């Protein structure tokens, strides 16, 4: 596989872009006028406009976070906050304008949909251009639409949950998203319904100097199950783009939500995302989070274990190549008795890449009989690479079993030597070891994604020497 990969192009293969065909865009920069224009263009209810303007106020007042990656390169005035690519959303790919459809063809989305997905959403710049869900699921009452449609068609339930998991004043970038959000997914799974095959959303930035601010709200009612997958790519431009999403998940008692991300933005995208889930009694939430692309990612998927017996699982893999900084991690807040969580993080730095694991485990006083375990491992491939681990823990209940382990090492010379002695070239040996290192993550992906991820890794690993 690695040999085959090496024959492929050396470039980021999703770096192409289409001609601008947008039908509407706000002027560059952010202001109350821009926010009002977005809301008006979408024909939103008054409460949402007020929500947006309040969020804008938070965004403008909050300082830039300085505790993590270097964000000084972001120029908020030089970004388009809303670009609408098409007039109407398509229900079939034939409804999607040809140039955009070709883009998604090249990304393999329609093919994947035919093969193994229960529903697909495809967002292009600020709006979802294609959306479809299998009829049998729709009949069971499963809602899978873009977030704007969710607001329009299910306002009551939308309003009950929207912004409750991540309030607009949570952090600067959540505030920005709350002010200018557009697109994303709204998922509602009724009580007891199990969506056995995944739903997928695909996010594509096409325009230069673009800010994409999709908003996702997933509500899984009692005893239901859903697996949501998102992927993302962007063209390679010399100017930086900004992606600041907000994802809120509510897992009602006994529900099980799995959220898988394969983040493969081009290396001119700042990816600053807030993702948080609430798990009620006996619910399970899993974040499967893979970060391969972007210039800088700051993303710490969180689980608030609010109900007795809730379980959280965070599995993340990060790869930082030359000039990339993956500042990723996790948070588990144990607020109820008998809750459990498990975090596994694997990261690899190559060239001048830097990976940082930043995590927080908190056990509140009333959360008795809690078990949590955190394991982070990092591999460094070059002299120039860097890896950091910042695991915070606050334990306020004595009745807890908490363990954390971390290691940082380079690819072992003895491992390479062993493989070389069996006739495997050094470069392929390194790739094999890297694949093995990411295995706990990859094996949780549906087969098609696992294959794709392995291929991407092989590409990223090109030219590296242990």
């Amino acid at each position, binding site marked *: 596989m690695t040999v085959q990969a090496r024959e492929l192009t050396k470039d980021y293969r999703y770096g192409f872009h289409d001609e601008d065909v947008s039908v509407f865009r706000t002027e560059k920069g952010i202001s109350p006028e821009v926010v009002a224009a977005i809301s008006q263009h979408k024909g939103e209810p008054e409460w949402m406009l007020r929500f947006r303007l309040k969020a804008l106020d938070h965004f403008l007042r909050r300082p830039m976070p300085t*505790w993590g990656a270097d964000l000084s390169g972001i120029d908020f005035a030089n970004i388009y906050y809303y670009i609408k690519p098409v007039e109407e959303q398509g229900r079939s790919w034939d409804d999607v304008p040809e140039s955009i459809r070709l883009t998604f063809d090249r990304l393999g989305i329609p093919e994947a949909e035919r093969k193994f997905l229960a529903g697909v959403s495809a967002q292009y710049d600020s709006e979802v251009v294609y959306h479809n869900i299998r009829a049998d699921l729709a009949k069971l009452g499963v809602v899978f639409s873009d977030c704007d449609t969710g607001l329009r068609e299910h306002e009551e339930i939308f309003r009950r949950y929207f912004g409750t998991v991540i309030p607009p004043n949570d952090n600067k970038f959540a505030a920005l998203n709350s002010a200018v959000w557009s697109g994303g997914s709204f998922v509602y799974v009724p009580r007891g319904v199990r969506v056995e095959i995944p739903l997928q959303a695909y996010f594509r930035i096409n325009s230069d100097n673009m800010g994409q601010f999709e908003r996702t709200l997933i509500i899984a009612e009692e005893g239901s199950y859903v697996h949501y997958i998102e992927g993302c790519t962007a063209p390679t431009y010399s100017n930086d783009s900004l992606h600041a999403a907000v994802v809120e998940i509510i897992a009602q008692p006994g529900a099980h939500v799995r959220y898988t991300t394969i983040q493969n933005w081009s290396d001119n995208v700042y990816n600053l995302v807030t993702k948080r889930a609430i798990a009620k009694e006996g619910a399970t939430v899993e974040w499967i989070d893979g970060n391969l692309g972007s210039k800088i990612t700051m993303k710490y998927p969180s689980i608030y274990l609010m109900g007795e017996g809730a379980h959280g699982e965070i599995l993340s893999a990060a790869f930082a190549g030359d000039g990339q900084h993956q500042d990723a991690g996790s948070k588990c807040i144990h607020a109820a008795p008998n809750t459990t969580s498990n975090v596994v993080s694997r990261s690899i730095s190559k060239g001048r890449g830097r990976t940082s694991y930043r995590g927080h485990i908190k*056990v509140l*006083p009333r959360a008795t009989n809690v078990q949590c375990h955190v394991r982070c491992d*990092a591999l*460094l*491939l*070059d*002299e120039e*690479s*860097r*890896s*950091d*681990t*910042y*695991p*915070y*823990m*606050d*334990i*306020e*209940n*004595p*009745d*807890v*079993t*908490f*363990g*954390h*382990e*971390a*290691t*940082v*090492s*380079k690819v072992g010379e003895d491992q390479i030597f062993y493989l070389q002695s069996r006739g495997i070239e050094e470069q392929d040996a390194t790739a094999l070891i890297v694949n093995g290192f990411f295995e706990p993550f990859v094996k949780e992906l549906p087969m098609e994604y696992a294959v794709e991820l392995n291929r991407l890794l092989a590409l990223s690993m090109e030219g590296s020497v242990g």
Partner: protein
Amino acid sequence: MTDVTVAEGAIARRRLGTLVDGGPAWLGDRRTAAWDAFTALPLPSSSRDEDWRRTDISKLRLGDFAPAGPAAEALVAAARARHARALPQAALVLCGPDGAVSVDHADSLLAQGVIVCPLQEAALRHPEVVRRGLSAVGVDGAYFAALWNALWAGGAFVYVPRGVEAMTPVWVSHLAPEAGAVSFPSTVVVVDERASLTLVEDRVGPGDAAPRLSVGVTALRVADQSRVDDIPVQQLPPGTWHFATRRAALAAGSRYRLLGATLGAGLEKAYWDVLLEGAGAEADVLAVCHARGRQHLDLQSLQLHRARDTRSNLLYKVAARDLARSVYSGLIDVERDAVHADGYVLNRNLLLSRGAVASGVPRLEIKANDVRCGHGNSVGHVDDEERFYLMARGVPAEEAERLIVTGFFADVIDRVSQESLREWLTALLAVEIAGAPAAEPEAATEDAAEPGGRGS
């Protein structure tokens, strides 16, 4: 009140002026630079400073603390008794809170050419060595280190010349200031090439809960191929605000071993920094901490790997009961040239009561690639099964818990090689574990805020 306080206004400047005038010029410059840095720095804030995020000292009013007077005779006697019981063969350096220093039992060391004397005296007589010793501690970086650099007085100085293995340990006693006062305990140690030393640093005070302030620095410079065993014991009174920096700079092939016990103070923020500067330097930092009542004990460690083939290992075991809070943060920082560095941190916490809290941040920052680094961190409680096992054999429940906590600390304490010192530390811990109630707070004569509150 205000005209007798330190670190605020005219009195502090007058004290600084006296110290500058009374010492060598280089030290005066150092004090002045430190004072300038200190006055420019704000009080560390839990909302602004990452290092202080879990330790809130906003209630500390430096201006409320007067300069310390001479130690009470009872305290001097208590400090001598600790030395006599634990390690009577050690040379004894008694450092009063006012800067008065006395040296006893040092004859055999002096005969070996070892220097054991007050730090201020050493600064005049052996300026080059003292400067070497102090060089690892910057004057202008951190708030309390800057304050100490400006205003320290008295203190202990130990120098072990090249090739000398100090025949007896050095026991430095730092006596707590009286109620409502501040002291600046200081220890500077320089161990030259292929030499060795065992240092015990005992911080002790009376049992009352009146507010006190202690701002200390211990600086150790360990030259090529030398060895230092460093045993800090902290048993300050429960009303004490304690800010301490302990910094060991290790040259090539040197070996540093710290065995610590942290038991006292109301609020402590301690920095234990190990700088592995020379190839092949090794450091083992092993410590126990017992926190009870409303104690808030914060240890921040640094293992800075600057050179190749360096190894560091830290084990920090904390038991917390009542409403006590333990905060541990540690950083293993591996610089680019430190190939084959091997660093490890393990922090284990045992929470004994509802209301006790343990927080931790064991960080890694790795910039070299051919390294092996890791950390572990755990929080647990006394296992019901263990308790049941012991109770089934006729051990009462409370006794069972005491046995389990004692066992938890044993793997650190058992590594103290001097038998009498080990037994003494075991006895100190036994008293803490048994939870003898702290002395009733004396009627506060000063209106200084007490530390150790949970900040609302």
